[in-house]
């Protein structure tokens, strides 16, 4: 996708102090750029492409669940030609395109991996963060632009590993996105597999590169937010989105490395025959394996979930940040409980490091350790509730404009609410013993990420697209996208709670057909959910058309089409290299909407106070800032 960024600033004033003759040539501008805005767009387009790819994997899986053993219609033959015979086979009548068990498992593992690490994190954290955060704090770029570029290309390399893994003999990784050993230690290591170019090994290697990219990125985010705030931008004047990205960056920085260590260990197990995770006396296909033994599968689970729990907060916090911005802007009033939200997000980030074993209640935990994790898990629901409640209360008394971003942001609240509330029973290991690995879990976490974070991402796209491209997205297509998505996404995920409570297991590749007699009352939901998934896919078409066509055909956007207060709207649209065409100073908080006595219903952060009137609430000017 190309932006409308030009090589010279739209406002080519003589006194502009940005490099308006900045012209680095095609490669340094579009490919190997160190400009945070271009890097943000690179992350965004790559991430959105992977979200679409992950969605398509899911659609094939959902076909299988609703019609086990039947060839995928229309495109079945093509799928078999592309993905090969480990993933697809012909049915009894010779019709090609039936998803095999291995194929289902690999699509499932890759759907999870791709959506989490190659879709949501690159889009919500890296893309929006890179583009918006420096602008919102009044900086000209990130503190380490070259490292920023390196982080994107490291990420891109990891994408290549993941995509290539589909096309090697044996197909992509199929041991779950969680990659539990001993299965992940022996998978794809048979006589027909290549010693390195096999799905699981490529998966682990790709994850190592992905994690490295994340680490480089998070160092940049934290340093930038601490060091490059403009004069007057004190900590408590930061837009909430910046706080959210700040905490998210810390989660990535400190939680990812143990998984990187575990990834290295899994590679050692697979490539060098070590027994980090391979237990003594492992028997596969009736024969004792060659590992020395002495390893621990539980060790992997600890190291994996030590990351993966903070990871789920990485998935949600940028979304909450975006929703906060959009709600304040479209209710024309400040956020309710800004300070409480900041405190809550820190407590949430802190607690997220000590709850991980609630994913491991089935590993034979004693009362002390299980009790510890149950307590911390219940505690962490408190700051989550504070955040959502504060956002809901922010609607009260507002002058609400239901623009398309606001539709998505408002819908986010009850959807995330359902996701969060369905998580609370899971905190108790007694309940989790029954619900673990059922569709209840899938319903729970999808509600948080799908109608949760992805709706927040859509809100963010509709909100910031004008700033990035200089064009507005079409309102009618946006509303169609919203309503259809809202209806169908609930159609997919709500019945999962019913299936889960009935005991339907989460990784049955035939949708439970083998156990039909046990789950008769709920098995019919498979068809309903699969149809909903297909329709949800169709509902994205207006969005894709809108996204692509509006670059050329969209209504031209002014610098501040939403009449917002935060600093990113005080730049030309789209922002030039160097971002600002004047010195930026911040004079007030981020949500000075509808201030009594002001001449318009919003007062931008960068607007100097008028000398003939006393300053409005919260103004202290740039000088008295360095107390913080």
């Amino acid at each position, binding site marked *: 996708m190309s932006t409308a960024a030009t090589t010279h600033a739209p406002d080519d004033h003589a006194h502009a102090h*940005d*490099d308006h003759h*900045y012209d680095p040539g095609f490669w340094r501008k579009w490919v190997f750029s160190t400009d945070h805005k271009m890097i943000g767009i690179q992350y965004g387009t790559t991430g959105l492409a992977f979200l679409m790819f992950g969605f398509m994997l899911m659609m094939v899986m959902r076909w299988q669940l609703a019609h086990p053993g039947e060839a995928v219609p229309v495109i079945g033959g093509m799928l078999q030609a592309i993905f090969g015979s480990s993933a697809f086979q012909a049915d009894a009548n010779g019709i090609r395109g039936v998803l095999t068990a291995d194929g289902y498992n690999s699509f499932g593992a890759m759907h999870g991996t791709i959506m989490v690490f190659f879709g949501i994190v690159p889009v919500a954290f890296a893309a929006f963060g890179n583009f918006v955060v420096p602008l919102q704090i009044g900086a*000209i*770029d990130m*503190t*380490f*632009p070259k*490292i920023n570029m390196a982080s994107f290309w490291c990420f891109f390399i990891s994408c290549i590993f993941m995509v290539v893994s589909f096309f090697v003999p044996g197909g992509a990784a199929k041991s779950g996105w969680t990659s539990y050993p001993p299965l992940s230690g022996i998978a794809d290591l048979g006589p027909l597999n290549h010693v390195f170019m096999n799905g699981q090994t490529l998966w682990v290697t790709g994850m190592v590169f992905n994690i490295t990219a994340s*680490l480089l990125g*998070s*160092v*940049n985010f*934290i*340093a930038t937010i*601490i*060091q*490059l705030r403009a004069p007057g931008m004190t900590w408590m004047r930061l837009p909430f989105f910046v706080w959210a990205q700040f905490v998210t960056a810390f989660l990535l*920085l*400190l*939680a*990812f*490395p*143990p*998984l*990187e*260590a*575990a990834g*290295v*260990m899994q590679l*050692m197990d697979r490539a*060098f*025959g*070590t*027994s*980090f995770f391979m237990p003594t006396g492992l028997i596969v296909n009736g024969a004792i394996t060659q*590992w*020395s*033994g*002495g*390893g*621990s599968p*539980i*060790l992997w689970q*600890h*190291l994996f979930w*030590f990351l993966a729990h903070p990871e789920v907060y990485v998935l949600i916090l940028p979304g909450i940040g975006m929703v906060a911005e959009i709600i304040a802007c479209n209710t024309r009033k400040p956020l309710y409980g800004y300070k409480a939200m900041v405190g809550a997000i820190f407590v949430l980030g802190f607690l997220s490091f000590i709850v991980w074993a609630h994913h491991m209640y089935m590993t034979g935990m004693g009362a002390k350790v299980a009790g510890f994790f149950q307590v911390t898990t219940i505690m962490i629901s408190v700051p989550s509730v504070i955040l959502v409640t504060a956002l809901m209360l922010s609607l009260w008394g507002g002058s609400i404009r239901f623009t398309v971003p606001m539709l998505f942001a408002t819908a986010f609240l009850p959807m995330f609410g359902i996701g969060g509330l369905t998580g609370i029973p899971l905190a108790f290991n007694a309940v989790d013993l029954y619900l673990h690995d059922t569709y209840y879990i899938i319903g729970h976490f999808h509600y948080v990420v799908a109608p949760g974070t992805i709706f927040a991402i859509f809100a963010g796209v509709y909100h910031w697209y004008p700033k990035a491209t200089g064009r507005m997205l079409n309102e009618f297509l946006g509303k169609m996208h919203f309503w259809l998505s809202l209806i169908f996404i609930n159609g997919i995920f709500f019945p999962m709670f019913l299936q889960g409570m009935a005991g339907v297991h989460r990784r049955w590749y035939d949708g439970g057909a083998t156990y039909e007699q046990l789950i008769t009352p709920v098995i019919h939901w498979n068809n309903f959910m699969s149809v909903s998934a297909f329709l949800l896919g169709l509902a994205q078409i207006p969005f894709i058309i809108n996204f692509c066509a509006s670059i050329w055909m969209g209504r031209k956007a002014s610098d501040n089409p939403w009449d917002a207060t935060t600093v990113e709207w005080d730049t030309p649209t789209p922002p030039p*290299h*160097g971002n600002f065409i004047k010195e930026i100073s911040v004079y007030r908080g981020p949500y000075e909407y509808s201030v009594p006595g002001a001449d318009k219903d919003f007062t931008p952060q960068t607007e100097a106070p008028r000398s003939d009137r006393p300053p409005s609430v919260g103004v202290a000017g740039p000088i008295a*800032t*360095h*107390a*913080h």
Partner: protein
Amino acid sequence: MQIPHEVTARPDTGLYNAKLGIWLFLASEVMLFGGLFSAYIFLRMGAPDGYWPHGLLNVPVGAMNTAVLIASSVTVVLAWASLKMRKFSQYKLWMGISILCGALFLFVKLAYEWPQKFDHFGAFIKPEALAKYEPLLGNKRIEEENKKGGAKIDPRVEISGHLHEVVIDASAADKERLDAFLKKHHLEAKPDAHHPNLLAVEGKHLTPGVVEDLARLPDGTLKAPGIKLKTFVLALDPVNADPTNPESDKPHFWYKGATEKHGEIQVEDVESWSAFAPKHSPYFAVYFTITGLHGLHVLAGVLIMLYFWLPIEGGANMFKRNPEHLANRVEVVGLFWHFVDLVWIFVFPIFYLL
């Protein structure tokens, strides 16, 4: 377009950008090595008695390497101080010494410590066969000693040393392939003294790796390996050569290699065998992984320090243009280097001494 606070500190935080950046990166490195150390703790606690070895590593060499790294930590901070005092030739001296120390550390590891292990052979004996090898293991005496109290001595479940000879059944083997293999690895095969139908293979370069390759030789068809290993004959390590000697109860400072005494192990009594390679046991797995990852960090540090030492644009030549910026760069790589030293200060006792 100049990023603010690249060289001079931001007043309210008191930091310049790269200093904050490197500390953030070091925080993530703490978590990375923390993950590896937690694996160490987990695997060691889960190891059954006798399966976690002690005293296998060369302590004097390890201690010397520790001293080398500590010295280089001192010299790198002296290099930074020299730059702050604008004393360029002093800077070059101290920085050069740091680079050489780092390189020496890597050389010792890669030219001696690691290769020496790939030559060393170890076989874990099956629990049901332990009694048969009592003369080489001395477990009865250990049981008696442990009853007396004090720090417990671990039972012995492994026989190790240097491979002298391996006895094989080559009756189903492809003779041509076997001969070519023996020739390539300078090995000699002659009929075994006790079992004339078996071959005794010996040679100067009979490492466990070579024996593994030998065991994988096909017989020309893909049905079964053509070579069956029967017996290992090895020059025993001191603990197996003299197991009932009280000296063998605890590890000692001076590293003793294999003795002249030979021992024999029947392959059917062996649970698993290999060189002292990563796959030998969880101990070696975590040893090689941690020292390997640490070594990669040492290499990275050496390369970056070299970059700042050489007379190039972003390196020593920066002294004329912007000495404060160069001082900051050296401070940042110094912090990284001290962290690498820090990790080794934990690694050394944990693997070499405990």
